[in-house]
């Protein structure tokens, strides 16, 4: 069947990674926009969270879809990692990387796995936090802890690295590569990860330093 042939081919698997990556990227955009309200005040953030959770069906549908997308991205990613590792380990006595700045592309599976670890911590900290405590209070409490916030900032640095290869790589896999736009895409591949880092790590930093505690 064409669909099975597509999914089992090397390019098909890459396209699955790229499509799920794009959906996760879009999720990050909405998540960053929503969370950024906390910079206005905890009250604004709380009202955003309350509004969002007053539509339980939407939250449920989106959460479940997100779970599926994550599982696909992680599952296929690990499968590819394992497949490629079988080929790439200790091929040469001397191996030299010719491409400059290949740190991000070389560490994709590792930054990805670190983000997964973060995700587990994050979900248990916030998604499954006691419903009796308002979420804005949970944010203050958890991110007020220096090491908790530091872990968050490190995780967002990993996300930055992951996206600084992932965004360009996704477009390349979709077949977007044209000399007219390549320079622009290279800039976006820096701007988007920086944007997410500024917002997400900014929130962690805001509460880690106690700046956000009174607002």
């Amino acid at each position, binding site marked *: 069947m064409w669909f099975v042939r597509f999914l089992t081919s090397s390019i098909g698997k890459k396209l699955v990674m790229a499509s799920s990556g794009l959906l996760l990227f879009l999720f990050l955009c909405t998540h960053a926009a929503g969370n950024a309200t906390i910079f206005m005040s905890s009250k604004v953030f709380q009202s955003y969270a309350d509004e969002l959770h007053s539509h339980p069906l939407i939250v449920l549908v989106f959460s479940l879809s997100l779970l599926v997308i994550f599982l696909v991205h992680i599952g296929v990613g690990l499968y590819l990692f394992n*497949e490629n590792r079988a080929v790439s380990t200790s091929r040469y006595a001397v191996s030299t990387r010719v491409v400059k700045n290949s740190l991000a592309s070389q560490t994709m599976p590792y930054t990805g796995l670190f983000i997964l670890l973060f995700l587990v911590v994050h979900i248990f900290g916030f998604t499954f936090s006691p419903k009796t405590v308002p979420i804005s209070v949970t944010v203050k409490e958890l991110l007020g802890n220096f090491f908790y916030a530091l872990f968050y900032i490190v995780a967002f640095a990993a996300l930055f690295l992951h996206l600084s290869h992932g965004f360009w790589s996704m477009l390349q896999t979709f*077949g977007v590569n044209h000399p007219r736009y390549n320079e622009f895409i290279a800039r976006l591949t820096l701007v988007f990860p920086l944007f997410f880092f500024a917002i997400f790590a900014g929130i962690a930093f805001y509460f880690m330093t106690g700046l956000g505690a009174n607002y």
Partner: protein
Amino acid sequence: MSSINLTLKIWRQANSDALGGLETYSLDGIHTDMSFLEMLDVLNEKLTKEGKDPVAFDHDCREGICGMCGAVVNGIAHGPEKETTLCQLHMRHFKTGDTLVIEPFRSRAFPVRKDLLVDRSALDRIIQAGGYVSVNTGGAPDANGLPIASQRAELAMDAAACIGCGACVASCPNGAAMLFTSAKISQLALLPQGQVERKQRALAMVAQMDVEGFGNCTNARECEAVCPKGISIRNIARLNREYLTAVLSEG
């Protein structure tokens, strides 16, 4: 003419089944005007005179257009010079006292036959899987009978510059043959002559590529950096598009 003294560490392996290993040779008085392969010739003459087995390596035209030669020199396929095949790499790029580690092009799909000589017929089988191109036979067609925009013709020509040496596979961290396959697919997909079997060709060549045991592309860009013909990964993007279109609409 100046000359240099080198230490060579070369992969020696008696046959496909034998266990190989690096062996060290010192080679003095190598003229800097020699090519890398001529340097190996000097070594082989020396080994032959000493009654030892010379180092087996592939070569043919020695002018950078046939794609037969190639080895990994200090971790870089075809050595440190950009857009240069091993035969066109000259010893003036090295200095006296250098240690050169010379290993065969490695991939799961490239079994080592002897020393630096690898079996790259997997690449031929990818081309064979591409099948035929439907063209009218008969007298020579009019020169401009088939209009082709010059930019397209240039892009097709850029892709057709691929000599199939396998350096892309050797340098890819995953041993993928995407740059090679994408160049072969692009050169036909860009031209009107390649349209009839376009989708079929993309599907068959990618399927063969996977069967041969090449790895998956992770966009590490190493292939493009070592390619002696400067084939761009823009071709890989084109292959991805070709494959997606074909898989969604063909068969």
